[in-house]
């Protein structure tokens, strides 16, 4: 018997010479929403939008209807997906955002179909395949001032707060405390805090050092030295690499890895460089459900492919729930793998919530990798 089914339907009418009216419905076991959006055909700009609920899950969901208007003025151009996800998804409802993205895609295809029909009327021999091969949606007239609809820019959605600290996580006991997992802007597109500000905050807090682990980004040693000298603070380089098995923190590998790499291939490179690999937040769940709801046991989790290729597991991460951190710690125990801690800081106010305490002095990236291999550390809760 089916336990989940989602239908999405879209229809596009040409309601004026330069207007495409898109009607969309998203209907599944949990949510039922419909939207009507008018796009300009020339620029694929949203001219108006309205929505309606049929099924929802919290008493506050209906308020989302008032928050759809910031979509007016958005165009189908690079960045459209991210804008809709941020402004409509977070500011209103992710299901309306999902539907609006689908409607935008339908509007684009309708524009292509209409323009093909017009071209084929002039050139009856023109095949659809040949037309599509050369067609570009941005071959549109410039945005006319008369079509512009000015709306007040919505306040950017605030990021989710840090998760509550794991109450029984150990506190530092006099060792050297280093945050092993830090993101900075603009090196990590998902981060909002510049590195200078994060360093200042870390120093004020009393963290002894931090490792920048921007996503698939390698800082130059010159930049790091300049920042160390400027702030008089221990700044080291790492990397958070996207693998087919999830995010992996890598220390001691100075290589610019783009895209997604197979974890086994990354392992080979790290071994060659004598570096160190930590599986980052291995049980980070979804909005509502997590490993616990899936019925995943520690023994089953320990069998996962990802753990065959790492030297340690991040068991204290500032972006996951206490239960998820606790579960990661149990899996690390089961595998006899050491655990690390890091804030996974992306914005101000979050650095150092978790960190790793070393029993030896760390002054360089070589020191760090050596101490990690030697096991001279433990994960700690640092900031309340």
């Amino acid at each position, binding site marked *: *018997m*089916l*336990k989940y*089914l*989602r*239908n*999405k*339907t*879209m*229809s*596009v*009418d*040409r*309601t004026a010479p330069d207007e*495409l009216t898109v009607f969309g419905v998203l209907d599944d*076991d*949990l949510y039922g929403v419909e939207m009507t959006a008018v796009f300009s055909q020339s620029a694929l700009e949203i001219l108006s939008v309205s929505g309606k609920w049929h099924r929802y*899950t*919290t*008493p*506050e*969901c209906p*308020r989302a209807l008032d928050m759809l208007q910031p979509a007016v003025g958005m165009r189908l151009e690079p960045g459209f997906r991210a804008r809709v996800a941020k402004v409509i998804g*977070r*500011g*209103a409802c*992710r299901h309306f955002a999902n539907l609006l993205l*689908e409607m935008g895609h*339908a509007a684009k*295809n*309708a524009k292509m*179909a209409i323009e093909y029909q017009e071209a084929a009327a002039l050139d009856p021999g023109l095949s*659809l395949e040949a037309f*599509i091969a050369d067609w570009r949606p941005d071959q549109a007239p410039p945005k006319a001032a008369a079509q512009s609809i000015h709306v007040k820019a919505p306040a950017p959605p*605030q*990021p*989710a*707060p840090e*998760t509550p600290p794991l109450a029984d996580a150990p506190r530092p006991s006099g060792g050297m405390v280093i945050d092993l997992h830090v993101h900075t802007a603009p090196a990590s597109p998902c981060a909002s805090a510049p590195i200078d500000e994060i360093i200042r905050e870390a120093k004020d807090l009393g963290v002894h050092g931090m490792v920048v682990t921007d996503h698939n980004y390698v800082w130059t040693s010159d930049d790091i030295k300049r920042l160390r000298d400027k702030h008089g603070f221990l700044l080291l380089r790492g990397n958070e690499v*996207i693998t*087919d*098995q*999830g995010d992996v923190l890598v220390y001691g590998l100075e290589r610019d890895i*783009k*895209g*997604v790499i197979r974890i086994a291939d990354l392992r080979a490179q790290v071994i060659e460089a004598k570096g160190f690999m930590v599986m*980052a937040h291995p*049980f980070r*769940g*979804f*909005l*509502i*459900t*997590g490993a616990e709801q*899936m019925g*995943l046991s520690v023994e*089953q*989790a320990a069998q*996962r492919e990802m753990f065959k290729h790492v030297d340690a597991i991040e068991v204290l991460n500032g972006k996951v*729930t206490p239960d998820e951190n606790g579960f990661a710690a149990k899996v690390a125990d089961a595998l006899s793998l050491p655990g690390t801690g890091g804030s996974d800081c992306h914005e101000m106010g979050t650095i150092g919530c978790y960190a790793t305490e070393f029993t030896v002095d760390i002054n360089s990236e070589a020191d760090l990798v050596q101490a990690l291999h030697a096991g001279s550390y433990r994960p700690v809760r640092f900031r309340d």
Partner: protein
Amino acid sequence: MIVKFLRNKVVEVEPRKDGTLRVSWRLTDDLLKMEVNLVVQPPALEIIEATAELGRFVPKGLEDASEIIEDVEGVNIGAGLRKIVRGVLGGPEGQSLLSEAVLECCNAVILHFTRPGLEIGEALETDEERLEAVRAMVKSSPRLVRSCISFQDDSPIMKGLDL
């Protein structure tokens, strides 16, 4: 008025006797006919089988979709899913139609597991009990905070939660 363009999409999750989930995703519109099927193994939610079939006007680069999609076999529906799926299916400039289809399949699996928890809350008798159930859900899943209008700071749901 004759409609200019029509699209239907459906995704369904079917538990099978062997404990796996079969996810079937189908798209039909004026230009494209496309089908993606995944087999997902709980509880790790590993994609153990992935197939794709396209017809009508197949977009450039997707002629070998049935082979390309095999690259998601072995991927777990879990942390970093979007980056991983978009990455293994060709990177940010790659096969967006195929990767978005796989991501919609994965989202359906997540919602399949989300449903039972929401059903428990819905079965409660009073509005106050249901509100408390939602608040308990937020407390146990802080990622919900500010994730949509229901969980913004000014929402009555968030009153007194101190998150």
